[in-house]
């Protein structure tokens, strides 16, 4: 049923809890796979290039931010992959989800950026509205 699961990650506690539910989904289907999608928005990209310069260091630093999720997935023995996607958080997740042919998308209800979600509406809301496959929002 849920062979390919997309998990939105940003290093927050919410995305960590989303990971738990994603793992639970994998147990319902054999050989299922989780794609952890980490979004880098343009403003963050600018700031991080300024700070780290080198692209290898950049990739490492970004992976570091989501080690909590990665460690959890490893502990659970889930088969997963990390994808770093550039774009605005909402549209970026929607595009990746719709182009990737996933069976289910799992997102936390609230990520790191509380202020932004207050002003612009939450990312999870956009994902729920525009993603074509089933979406699980973890409260």
């Amino acid at each position, binding site marked *: 049923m849920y062979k390919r699961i997309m998990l939105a990650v940003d290093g927050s506690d919410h995305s960590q809890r989303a990971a738990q539910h994603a793992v639970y989904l994998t147990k319902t289907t054999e050989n299922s796979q989780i794609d952890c999608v980490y979004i*880098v928005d*343009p403003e963050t*990209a*600018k*700031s*991080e*290039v*300024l*700070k*780290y*310069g080198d*692209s290898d260091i*950049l990739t490492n630093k970004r992976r570091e931010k989501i080690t909590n999720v990665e460690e959890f997935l490893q502990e659970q023995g889930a088969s997963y992959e990390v994808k770093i996607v*550039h774009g*605005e958080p909402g549209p970026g997740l929607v595009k990746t989800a719709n182009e990737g042919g996933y069976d289910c998308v799992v997102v936390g209800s609230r990520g790191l950026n509380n202020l932004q979600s207050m002003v*612009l509406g939450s990312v999870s809301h956009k994902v729920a509205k525009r993603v074509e496959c089933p979406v699980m929002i973890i409260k």
Partner: protein
Amino acid sequence: MRRLNTEKLKKEWMGNGLKAEVMAGIVVALALIPEAIAFSIIAGVDPQVGLYAAFCIAVVIAFVGGRPGMISGATGAMALLMITLVADYGLEYLLAATILAGILQILFGVFKLASIMKFVPRSVMIGFVNALAILIFLSQLDHFEGAGWEMYAFTAMALFIIYLFPKVSKSVPSTLVAIVAVTAVVVFMGSNVGTVGDMGALPDTLPVFLIPSIPLTFETLQIIFPYALALAVVGLLESLLTASIVDDMTDSDSNKNKESRGQGYANVTTGFFGGMAGCAMIGQSVINVKSGAAGRLSSLVAGVFLLFLILVLGDLVVQIPLAALAGVMIMVSISTFDWNSLFTIHKIPKSDASVMIVTVGTVVITHDLSIGVLAGVLLSAIFFAAKISKMKVKSKVEEETKRLYQVEGQLFFASVTDFIDSFDYNEAVNRVEIDMSGSHLWDDSAVDALQRVKDKFEQKGIVVEVTGLNEESSRLIERTSEALKASGH
């Protein structure tokens, strides 16, 4: 082979497809117009100088740039460097300096010097963009001096629209909406505020090729060279930084030496066609990539469409109030500033923080970005030398009459004093072993210091044995002693 090349060419030009490139180019052109005019005003030249620059640079870079999808044009960093040249000597000297800066950038690219940018530490780069943001902001304060309430009101209105319009629609740049709205209100109210028309001529023709009318003497060179050098360095610094950001945003690599040459060609061309020096623009490149572009075509469309608009709408453009432009520049300043660096300044090492602050401070005081970068690089070099010059010497008694010293750290001019003082020359031992396996000798002073230590022990009749020297250090000692022999000492 040929087929491969056309395919590569197609990818470079079309990026994410024809429609995406053209649409992004149009959006960028609309966003470029107010900035090009505002940067001209900062530099103290007619708005047409900045607009011609934006056109020429965007078009030339489309063909010869190294980073498809990146937008270049007249920029604040460059405008700020030319203020005194324009004020003291006039436009013709600026055009000459622009051409010379371009030639320097071409040489930089030809000799593949892009990699020396790695010697500019990250904290200096962060200081650079923050200082740039502060200078752009400060440059706008002139417009408010002695201005009436209308100036403040219209600027506030522009900022309000710039930041809130994106919630209504993101397809039109909000800066353009702000400019149109504020201009309309000003015209409708018949308000008597300063406009773009008051600041000088706008283009009414295509730019023409002209050789700057300056005396071709050594004196002229003396005047323009320092400016050209500063323009070349700052232009490359910002362009290569922008290229890295676009690399990251589009997940692709780019040729930095080609970009350096491209920036050079663009500046030479713009200088001959009456435009001011420019470079890559972080903000516009982000807009371009966000709008879906990743190819060269977007830059070409942006340049051509910009000039087309100005030629057609010139009569309207002169009516744009300066208050609206000030609003746009304040937005540019806010988005240029790296706020993250401010919020995390207590978390980064103190030396990095002070390099950043010194870079910003130097620029704000001197109004010269290149001096700030130089100060930042020098300070971080000093910090670095201080950090690695720390020597650690451990010692223990091996046999009753022999002491072993274990040296750890880099031995060079800055650490030799510490090194020499680390030994006890008056101890009653017969033999001393200096284990250098945790150390490295870097220069003449290091070789000299090691010899001095030996001499000092030997004066007391203590036998010295130096062990564990690595290969490079031993070779350095050999070479130095040969050089000494050759000079007859």
